[in-house]
């Protein structure tokens, strides 16, 4: 999935490790993308609209309030049953938490991007906050529906999970 400081992954289901960040920056991962199928009806997944004829699609996750964040971003097929790619990381290393999806925008139609993890407070002090901001961009600009923020009070730790369906138009 990513273009970040990490090596290309040829498998459709790479192993998760935060330490992969230390690896050298190389080309985006090639993902075997199955043909788009109709999504299951019974879901409430928000939609991010990408341009089918546009450039590469990137995703980025950011943690506010200078808190500790640990995350995994996954790319799923339209049904959400098959994981096609995965990347993990932490907010405390100097590597940007930004990935470029290797499939074209047209190939990504109806696919799911899911991000999950946890924000940890650095101390048990009261009245702390957290924020997790997830952005989908294409050609360097945000896409409609592609900006998702989750904020709230933070006591010790807070897990999070978000999901978007990419729809190419």
């Amino acid at each position: 999935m990513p273009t970040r400081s990490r090596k290309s992954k040829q498998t459709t289901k790479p192993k998760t490790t935060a330490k992969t960040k230390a690896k050298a920056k190389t080309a985006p991962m090639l993902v075997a993308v199955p043909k788009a199928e109709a999504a299951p009806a019974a879901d409430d997944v928000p939609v991010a609209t990408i341009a089918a004829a546009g450039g590469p699609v990137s995703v980025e996750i950011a943690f506010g309030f200078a808190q500790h964040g640990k995350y995994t971003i996954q790319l799923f097929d339209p049904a959400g049953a098959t994981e096609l790619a995965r990347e993990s990381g932490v907010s405390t290393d100097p590597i940007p938490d930004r990935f470029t999806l290797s499939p074209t925008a047209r190939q990504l139609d109806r696919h799911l991007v899911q991000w999950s993890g946890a924000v940890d407070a650095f101390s048990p002090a009261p009245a702390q906050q957290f924020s997790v901001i997830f952005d989908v961009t294409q050609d360097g600009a945000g896409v409609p529906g592609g900006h998702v923020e989750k904020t709230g009070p933070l006591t010790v730790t807070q897990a999070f999970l978000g999901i978007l369906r990419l729809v190419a138009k």
Partner: protein
Amino acid sequence: MSALTSNVRAWLVVLLVLASCQALHAETGNAETGNADTDNKDSKDASPPPAPGTPVKLITLDLAVPDSPAFAILGLSPETVVRPSTPRDLATTVLNGVDRRGNLQSGLAVDFAPLFLFAGKELTYNNYKSSRGTQLYGRTQISFATAKGATDGDKSLRLALGVRTTLWDQGDPRLDETLVTCLDDIPIPVPTTALLTQAARDAWVAKATAERRPAVEGCHKAFKTRAWNASSFAVGVAPSWQSPTGESKDFAYAGTAVWASLALGLSMSEPATSGAPAQVHPFGQLIVQGRYRNKEMVPDKNTKGAFFDQDSAGVGARLLLGAADRAVVIETQVARQSPKTGSSTTSVSVSGGGQLRLASDLWVSLSVGATRGGSPNEQRGGFVLSSLKWALSREPAVKIP
């Protein structure tokens, strides 16, 4: 009792002996001081210790810069402190604190860190770590408080603004590599499928949060054990204003308080050996604090309801030896009061004591103190034993960060 260790049992025996001594102390009217000039405070000290659970402050000096200087200068311990999490919350709080005529109401107590309030959402860990200016701003706290006059006939309204910042902080948890690694290494489960419904996502979040919490708390605890005595230098300032009528147009400057506190960690280092990193063993902390307050309105003992202006200054020091759960404490303070009318006085106080954690929420603390000088009415010939106190409480007498 059978669950208690022999160490704890021994301390309980010591406590019983102390309790007996204290009862005797009360009955003999502080006979061990040999001083008939014992004031009411001494008698109060001889009363039975508060029940466990009541916060106890045995060692009297507060040598840290107050977290909320505005509350400190007004002498408040507000029950409801608003800690706004968004600029909108702050605006709402301030607007709610103004009546229809535009006058401030009493009872406002607001405390916030401006960096996290106004720019926290976009503040990443790397922004913070890479900029000393950001770190300094992040460790700056602003407080704002109002308080009404102390008596029914007193319509006055007091207002204070406080700023506190830690200029140097060796104990900043965000900059502690060991803590960062500890948090980095806590695993977190990854869903094997996409969670397509909100209910499924909520359930995953709740489960993952609950599972992760003990491990994160373990990292916090390890950090506290390692860095409880971290060195730091903090300063605080709080100007205040008073309106005798309670109306905003009548506010006049009512003095400022300034604090500065330097803490130096005492540790022993064990050099790195082959394969093992260097070890640091914290064993104590030395704190030196200076404070100054001008134009303080002090109640006149001789004339009921009257006040006089006074400037005061003090320098205090505390040596704490031990660990986060058991420590011996020695404190001293030199304080000088300079009333606008009358002569200035200087007092010197010394106290020593200790504290021990018996269980997770149970501390035993004891202290003995002596004071010389002070106001003319309390003038004594030399150092006198002013108090011998002990208590069980949920909190230690000297809070260790």
